[in-house]
């Protein structure tokens, strides 16, 4: 059985437009046809180097960022030539169980539009070889909220860097927990426990080299 194609969807939709009466009957079929569309893959299969492409995740890990807002710095040293395609982040706030009411505010805010993965609770920026800052106000390098410049894994904030082995990506991050909740910094034990920033990469090496 051949795969469902976009042309199949188009033909069905066209028949529904031509006959609104029949469209009532065909609506369910349209949904099923769209759902059965073959996954896109020709681009992957026909590209020259996918033996080990899009396999790597370069990442930094910040543990127990304090609530002062002062930045911490981590460095990624690339082991190979890569094409960096996107960046994502995830923060984990640790709260004692007795402060569940406070901590639930964080999760509810994330669900309500603050941004998945608690990305609204930290600032971050990055530069290559600690020279060229990409997050700036036009004059100087600044940090931005994670929700504005990183993805959440469901989508990956697009990047398009081709970097060479031994180049570095310098990442700076700071907790903004104190801005989000005064209670958070007054209650002991509430802290931005873990922040990871991940760069999703493709390896540029050709197969067999």
């Amino acid at each position, binding site marked *: 059985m051949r795969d469902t194609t976009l042309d199949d969807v188009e033909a069905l939709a066209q028949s529904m437009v031509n006959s609104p009466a029949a469209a009532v009957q065909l609506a369910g079929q349209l949904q099923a046809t769209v759902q059965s569309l073959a996954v896109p893959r020709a681009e992957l299969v026909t590209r020259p180097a996918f033996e080990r492409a899009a396999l790597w995740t370069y990442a930094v890990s910040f543990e127990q960022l304090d609530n002062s807002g002062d930045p911490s710095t981590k460095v990624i040293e690339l082991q190979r030539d890569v094409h960096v395609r996107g960046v994502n982040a995830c923060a984990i706030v*640790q709260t*004692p*169980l007795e402060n569940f009411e406070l901590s639930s505010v964080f999760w509810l805010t994330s669900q309500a539009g603050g941004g998945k993965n608690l990305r609204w609770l930290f600032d971050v920026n990055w530069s290559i070889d600690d020279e060229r800052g990409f997050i700036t106000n036009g004059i100087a390098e600044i940090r931005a909220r994670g929700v504005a410049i990183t993805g959440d894994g*469901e989508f990956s904030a697009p990047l398009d860097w081709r970097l060479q082995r031994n180049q570095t990506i310098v990442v700076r991050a700071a907790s903004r927990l104190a801005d989000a909740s005064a209670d958070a910094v007054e209650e002991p034990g509430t802290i931005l426990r873990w922040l990871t920033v991940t760069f999703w990469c493709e390896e540029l090496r050709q197969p067999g080299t």
Partner: protein
Amino acid sequence: MDHRATLSTLAHHAANDPAHASVYARVVLDQIAAWKAEGGEPQTPPGYLYAGARSIVVRADRLAVEPLPEEPPAIGGGPGGVAITTTGNDFVQAKMPVDALIYGVSGYAIPNVLLNDNGAQILDTGELFAFSAASDGRDLFSAQWNVDGETQFTTDGTNSFMTPAAALVGTRLRPRALAWKLKRDQTIGVRFRNLYNAIVGRTEEQPDGIAPTINCALVFYALDLRRLEG
């Protein structure tokens, strides 16, 4: 929203509102025209057995938390605790049934009901999901993968380490795009860690804290690379 997702949404609305199905169909046509104007979706090259698209599921059930270094020694923490970026859990292996192209990966975690020592329920799965700020509970566990037990592919260039699945993989709706080829019988190894005790701190006053077990998995989407005969 990408074109596929838009089409899916429109078709869903048409199915739920048949009286206006022809109107939605018109929008579907407009959407397809816009898609094609952008170059369209790559056409499937001939010669592959794509119908056999597979899901390679690597899962861990009833995964318990591991003590963190800063937790009170009474609950297994202290110097002997396990750093948050790693785990004492073994890699779970999956063997490739055919030569395949791995083109995507998603993940999920589902917490199990939390019971007290007497077997009474403390929190159910729905309540436990309230601790997650990511889709499909992907921030409730960390993960890391390797191929044939060799390289760990999440690294800062010096050390390999685990990251929350929310920053490592996508969801079923939006998998992380991958592109790597494996031969039949090669293995993908994945190890997992339950992060509940990193989210809900345990204290000396409340050493039991909240530590449900979770069921979690990474799902790798694979294309069968065997050629059609002839």
